[in-house]
């Protein structure tokens, strides 16, 4: 895109600057639209599994429901509790929302269609996703209220625990792909399974890591069955209890943007990203971003499905799963995979 702006008579610096801003808008604005629609989809799937109709009044098939909700919270009054720490109370939803948008900078939407094609793409995602916990922890503390505080404590422990196993599953992927670059990881999956299946999930050594990653992603985004941070039977609404209007909406949007990001990571790291599912020249006529969107949507459906069917974990079960099962398992697979690669690819 820089070349296009240069052809309009800009110097290289200005063209780079303009094209980066344009790229950010090109990703962030459709992402916001996608988040609004995905909230609608989530509610529809959840309703269908509970034999209800779900939102069906606003717009055709209720499609405009999320926008109506957005308008409603926009017009509401922002209430700040008098005992709250005002600055941090308002900062927390901003952190959640911003961090949820940041990680999209390195997601490849098509061959070469990535805002920042950096060498350490996957590390960047790990770094940004480790920041997500601050929004929750700060909101819980700044609210100066019991339930949000409990929720913040739970969230901090939960996110740190599952980040460890996510880190190790990512190490497995990086070992096999041989690069941290997101596009490089996608390309490494081309014809990975028997020469025609695109995706690391087909690999018997990486498939268990995908399962671990999927479950850890649920825990990391605090989705059901790991939504203990906002368990309504115990904690009212968790860390969001004291929030209203736009500050609440920012939490909401950030949360769903994070869920979409985790679905995207599933697709990019284990299911071939923008590559078609199998290596067949006809399938390459379908644009790459469409394949990616189909995969993201599939994973989002899985997330909603799990939300609608699986009961909530107990907190000690959650901690046990993270530390006593996933951590040793993923460590074992890091050793197994590096051993296998030394044996077959790099030689002893």
């Amino acid at each position, binding site marked *: 895109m820089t070349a296009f702006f240069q052809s309009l008579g800009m110097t290289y*610096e200005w063209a780079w600057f303009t094209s980066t801003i344009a790229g950010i808008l090109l990703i962030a604005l459709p992402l916001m639209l996608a988040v609004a629609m995905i909230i609608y989809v989530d509610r529809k799937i959840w309703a269908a599994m509970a034999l209800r109709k779900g939102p069906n009044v606003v717009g055709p098939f209720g499609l405009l429901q999320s926008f109506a909700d957005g308008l409603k919270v926009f017009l509401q009054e922002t209430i700040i509790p008098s005992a709250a*720490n005002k600055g941090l109370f308002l900062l927390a939803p901003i952190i959640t929302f911003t961090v949820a948008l940041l990680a999209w900078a390195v997601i490849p939407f098509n061959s070469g269609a990535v805002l920042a094609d950096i060498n350490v793409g996957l590390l960047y995602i790990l*770094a940004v996703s480790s920041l997500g916990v601050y929004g929750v922890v700060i909101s819980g503390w700044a609210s100066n209220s019991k339930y949000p505080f409990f929720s913040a*404590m739970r969230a*901090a422990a939960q996110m*740190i625990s599952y980040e460890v196993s996510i880190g190790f599953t990512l190490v497995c992927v990086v070992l096999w792909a041989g690069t941290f670059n997101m596009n490089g990881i996608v390309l490494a999956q081309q014809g990975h399974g028997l020469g025609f299946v695109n995706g690391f999930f087909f690999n018997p050594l990486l498939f268990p890591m995908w399962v671990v990653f999927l479950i850890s992603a649920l825990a990391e985004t605090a989705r059901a069955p790991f939504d203990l941070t906002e368990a309504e039977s115990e904690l009212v609404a968790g860390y969001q209890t004291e929030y209203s209007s736009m500050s609440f909406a920012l939490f909401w949007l950030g949360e769903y943007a994070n869920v979409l990001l985790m679905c995207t990571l599933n697709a990019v790291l284990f299911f071939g990203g923008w590559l078609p599912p199998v290596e067949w020249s006809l399938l390459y006529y379908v644009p790459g971003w469409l394949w990616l969107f189909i995969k993201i949507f599939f994973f989002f459906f899985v997330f909603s499905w799990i939300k609608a069917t699986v009961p909530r974990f107990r907190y000690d079960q959650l901690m046990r799963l993270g530390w006593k099962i996933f951590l040793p398992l993923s460590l074992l697979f890091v050793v197994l995979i590096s051993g296998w690669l030394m044996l077959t690819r790099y030689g002893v």
Partner: protein
Amino acid sequence: MIQTLAFYLFAAMVIASAALTILARNPVHSVMWLISSFFNAAGLMIIIGAEFIAMLLVIVYVGAVAVLFLFIVMMLNIDFAELRAGFMKNFPVGIAIALVLLAELVLGIGAYRAGALELGVPDGSAAPILGASNIENIGALMYGRYLFLFETAGLILLVAMIGAIVLTHREQRAPRGHQNIAKQIARQPEDAIVNTKPEVGKGVQL
């Protein structure tokens, strides 16, 4: 131009955040400024082209260490008026530490001005691999030239970890709260549910 601008922005932010870390009256604010300082230091690392170290700085310090700081500070609910009561008592010690740090700083700059120190004979074995990325260079150094030092560092961390576990470990005396997870998972609906048809007026013996 833009590099200079970015450098001064990040450098000013690091120093301002570090100053606010010790000046903030609220300990939670203090940790927040510390996080901001870590973050801007990562920005400085990116400017000199050390993107791997920058990312690790964010992952390790911001993402893990500072979260634990925040966690502890929030849990302890420190009363700062009480802490400041001991200010005059600890003032001489603080001044002494500050003087030592200042002397080291001056000595360091003076030594640098006098000419950089030659550490051993440069034999080229630590030279960066041209055309390779940050990660490959660091990996080649760590697992090649500095392998034993690297593994020693790992062993020291392992010892520290085991020490921390030993210090906090307590033998479980009271069985209260202990759960047999395997038993819970192995439980089937057939074991837990009984279908009975009690006669009218009679109860059920469970």
